[in-house]
């Protein structure tokens, strides 16, 4: 390849970004870690990170993990059949109908969440309709259910898209071959379709689980002020209590979760390929 006269000129061309990545990605991350493992007087401590095990904090973390898992699961259950139906329709690339399912993604994230505030309020749209039909009214707003609903509504497209793409890429000949060799449709699904769509499922899970685990806007809008998630706790440390050390310590805990998620995804992905 003779695009560059030497390695040096390529390095020169990449240097602005290398500098940018150092200043705005690497150093800030090191600062989070530094603040997280030091106390206000500059001594090393693990207290900030260990705070996560204190009752209030641990409860918020457990609740976040629990709600994020439920939301991810619901998104998966809704998206997989949808992906299968869409891919069985043999659409052209970028068909209108597929875009229809991911279009809400382009509407502002806060407006999407606000929609559900309007619908679920005590005197909101849904209850008004229920009253009109003489049905008992519901009160979901400010409950964990409302938060899950908000997460599913917001993050569903992130699950639909990768699952649809991975299902759409499966070579039909492979499925026909399985059928020819005597597999029934359930066997074909378990042994062929599901394993081949694994990469899409995994990236969908990551794309829903991480934002759901770390959100603070959805919980503060739909969960009221009483149901705190770990994202809300961290946000308060930085914007209201100004305890950067504790906030950074808790952020390190979040990063550990993200890291574990990444490892699981990598392992599962490799396993799928080797089989």
């Amino acid at each position, binding site marked *: 390849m003779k695009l560059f006269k030497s390695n040096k000129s390529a*390095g020169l061309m990449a240097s*602005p970004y290398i500098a940018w990545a150092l200043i705005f990605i690497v150093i800030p*991350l090191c600062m989070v870690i530094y603040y997280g493992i030091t106390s206000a007087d500059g001594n090393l401590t693990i207290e900030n990170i260990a705070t996560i095990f204190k009752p209030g904090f641990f409860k918020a973390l457990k609740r976040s993990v629990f709600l994020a898992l439920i939301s991810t699961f619901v998104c998966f259950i809704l998206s997989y059949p949808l992906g299968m139906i869409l891919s069985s329709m043999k659409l052209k690339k970028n068909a209108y109908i597929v875009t229809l399912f991911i279009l809400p993604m382009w509407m502002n994230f806060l407006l999407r969440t606000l929609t559900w*505030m309007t619908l679920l309020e005590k005197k909101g749209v849904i209850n008004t309709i229920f009253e009109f039909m003489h049905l008992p009214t519901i009160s979901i707003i400010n409950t964990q259910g409302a938060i899950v609903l908000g997460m599913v509504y917001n993050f569903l497209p992130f699950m639909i898209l990768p699952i649809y793409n991975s299902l759409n890429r499966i070579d039909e000949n492979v499925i026909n071959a399985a059928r020819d060799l005597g597999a029934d449709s359930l066997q074909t699904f378990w042994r062929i379709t599901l394993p081949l769509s694994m990469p899409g499922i995994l990236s969908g899970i990551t794309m829903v689980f*991480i934002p759901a685990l770390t959100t603070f806007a959805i919980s503060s809008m739909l969960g009221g002020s009483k149901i705190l998630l770990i994202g809300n706790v961290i946000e308060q440390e930085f914007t209201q209590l100004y305890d950067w050390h504790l906030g950074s310590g808790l952020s390190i805990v*979040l990063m550990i979760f993200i890291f574990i998620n990444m490892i699981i995804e990598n392992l599962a992905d490799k396993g799928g390929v080797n089989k």
Partner: protein
Amino acid sequence: MKKILERIYLAIILIFMYAPIFTLIVLSFNSSKSRAKWGGFTLKWYTQLLSDEAVASALFNTLAIAILSTIFATIIGTFTCIAMIGLSAKVRSILMGITNIPMINADIVTGISLMLLFRFLHIGSGFGTILLAHITFNIPFVMLSVMPRVKNINFYVYEAALDLGASRSYAFFKTILPDIVPGIVSGALMAFTMSLDDFIITYFTKGSGFETLSTLIYNEVKRGIQPEIYALSAIIFIVVLALLFISYRAPMSKAKDN
């Protein structure tokens, strides 16, 4: 029978996705401030919205940051991807690893880390800090979309052009650049939408008194939803639909020309 069930399933999901949005659009024409009662048709929330200076400046800030961060991120990202060809495999994989960090990491951590950096450097928060933050999280989207194109470049064509007497830069613009332009365009589009939609990173890097649409809505909501916001939602939804429609028509008309 199976077909019908499938159609019903698609319809249910679509209703789940769009019924809430249409409710907002209906409410934006409701003259009663209450969500529970229809007070007649009105356009007053739209006129109020259009004369609202806070919304106008937030909209301006949002668009300015989205456009500028897209331009910078596209230029830096594209140059870096091309430079990657000439770098050793080790440097390349380290650089790609670092580039992946903002994509994998939670937005709240990215936002906090940048906030700590700006406070440490005593950079006053506002337009500049948000712009720097948006460029930072947009570059990976551009690189992710340009990189596959760069990997598939056919260098024989480039070398042939050189053999036929083209200068390096002429050969680059005539043989290599056209190959990667689709990647650059889709990366830029991705960066633009990511910037428009971002709330969390903006929230931590904005400082007080400076608002984008996202942070403005967040503040408004905490004080109680005004029907103006419904009008804003309706307008944004229509704009998104229109842009989508245009983007679908554009490639088709080009294909016809060919």
